[in-house]
């Protein structure tokens, strides 16, 4: 499903100062697999996730999703691929402040119009136990609720790959378990999950955990 091969990413901070965020990272994740990438801050987790989602062109290596090399596509094609097959969940939720819960969940349908989007959004809202919050703005929600809205938004277009960047970073233990439970549920239904986190709780739900240290995966398997 997702094949990352020899991925590297360099940032040039100033002339002569190069930061190697990723170096030769390879990772192969199949359908129905829930993989957690753990590492300290600055280890390159987010860079790996964004590159895997087609948002950050790497300095070297390839990222294949469904057999297609993301960075051989045009920007528009990558955007289309994200809309069709990839869902993102972030620690900061990135909900749009002036849209209510339903409208936030529906935003991916603007990128990929779908007649059934509204019905599906309501189903997701119900599934994530947000029905009584459907008309509320993000500012009126608890952090747990916001993350569930973010998760519902990520799932609207029925993606095959879910990319999560510290999704439980701002949540308490109970809410973290709920969210991780949903990821596991998504994987059980055949989806692929790549989650980067330093949360040890994620280990209970993941099929595989890989450690990222200074941009490298020393214990790749």
């Amino acid at each position: 499903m997702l094949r990352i091969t020899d991925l590297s990413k360099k940032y040039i901070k100033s002339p002569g100062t190069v930061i190697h965020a990723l170096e030769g990272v390879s990772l192969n994740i199949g359908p129905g697999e829930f993989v957690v990438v753990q590492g300290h801050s600055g280890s390159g987790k987010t860079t790996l996730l964004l590159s895997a989602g087609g948002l950050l062109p790497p300095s070297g290596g390839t990222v294949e999703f469904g057999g297609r090399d993301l960075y051989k596509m045009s920007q528009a094609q990558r955007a289309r691929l994200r809309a069709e097959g990839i869902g993102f969940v972030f620690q900061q939720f990135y909900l749009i402040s002036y849209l209510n819960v339903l409208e936030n969940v529906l935003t991916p349908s603007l990128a990929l119009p779908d007649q059934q989007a509204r019905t599906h959004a309501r189903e997701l809202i119900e599934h994530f136990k947000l029905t009584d919050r459907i008309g509320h703005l993000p500012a009126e929600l608890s952090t747990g609720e916001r993350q569930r809205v973010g998760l519902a938004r990520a799932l609207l277009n029925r993606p095959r790959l879910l990319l999560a960047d510290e999704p439980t970073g701002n949540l308490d233990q109970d809410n973290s378990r709920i969210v991780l439970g949903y990821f596991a549920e998504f994987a059980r239904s055949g989806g692929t999950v790549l989650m980067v986190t330093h949360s040890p709780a994620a280990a209970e739900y993941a099929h595989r955990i890989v450690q990222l240290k200074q941009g490298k995966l020393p214990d790749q398997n």
Partner: protein
Amino acid sequence: MTLWRLVTREILHQKLNFALGICSVIVAAGVLVAELTLLDAHDERTGQIMAEKEAGTAEEMARMEDDYRQIMKKLGFNLLVLPAGQSLESYYATGYVTEYMPEEYVHRLAGSGLMTIRHLLPSIERKIAWPEQKGRSIILVGTRGEVPVTHLAPKEPMLLAVNPGEMKLGYQLAASLELKLGDRTRLLGENFLVSEIYEERGTKDDITVWIDLAQAQQMFALQGKINAILALKCHCLGNELSQIRQDVARVLPETQVIEVDSKVVTRAEARDRAKAASQRALAAERANRVRMRGEVGKFASWLIPMVIIGSTVWIALLALGNVRSRRNEIGILRAVGFRSVQILNIFLAKAVLLGLIGAFLGYLAGFAIGAASGELSPNAQTIARLFNPGLLLLVLFSAPLLSALASWIPALIAAGQDPAEVLREE
């Protein structure tokens, strides 16, 4: 969920940003519309003023024309067609004509098609001693009234015919002989009824007796003969005596034409001068109005571009601020699959909406200010006259376009924003 929904929700959320943008468009559109409406109102008022003044001048000229005609009537005819053999020296010395010409000449002249003379009056006159009034010296004039000029519109005759058996008397004569209206008297053995006594003229007319031409010809035994044809020169510009002489000579070669009573000419010239002065005043008024319009136009010619440029810059700055404050939103929209062009459209759609609303409100405000501040009284009629649908369409088209252009660079920045940069910051 639609793109418009997203745009309108954001607008409602960022009311101040949008309101500031709209205010800017309102000011730009309002200044444009107000200035153009003021100019339209000025033109309209100029038209009204000039129409009023021209109507007043025309009325004054018509009144002067009538006045002129009345004066001409009082002063009498100003052209005299005399037999070619008449000595002008003798005429000027004695004041009356001694030679004769056929009465038929007047008909020839009336049917000649000449445009330069009108009111033709054939007459025969002689200075005689009035035997029945102790040999009182008088001028006896036989007249038959005016001969219609067939090619010209009929005019009210300046001098009416004298009926056979009646006489009209000059003021001095009637006074000295104590003759009154309705008296009967005898002249050269004929009985006459005094049918009219003229007011004092201060000329030889005051000692003149007018009787019917045929009766005079019979009394003088000069049937079919006349001394003179009195005529009125048509007072047209460039219509000089020499021209009239040439015209008459072509029709009546055996005659000569002299001009009498220069007071008429002087009066007519005065009228022409008054007309010219009036026209100069009209031209000056028109020039003044044009100058005033030029001043307003000059003011508008720098104010409007300045305001439009200022408004454009302001909208661009607001759009830039809006883009910067929505970096996270742009990042997540890109993450869920928005293409650059869709991001661009979000900002341009907002700019177009802003321009459209601002243009409409700006037009209303500008029109109201222009109509209320103009030289016309603001009423329904004025509004209907000044309302310019073309200008409304122009504003409704150009303001959104300008707003979109102003937002273009900020929108491009938004569309080109690297989502990873934002999403990685956390």
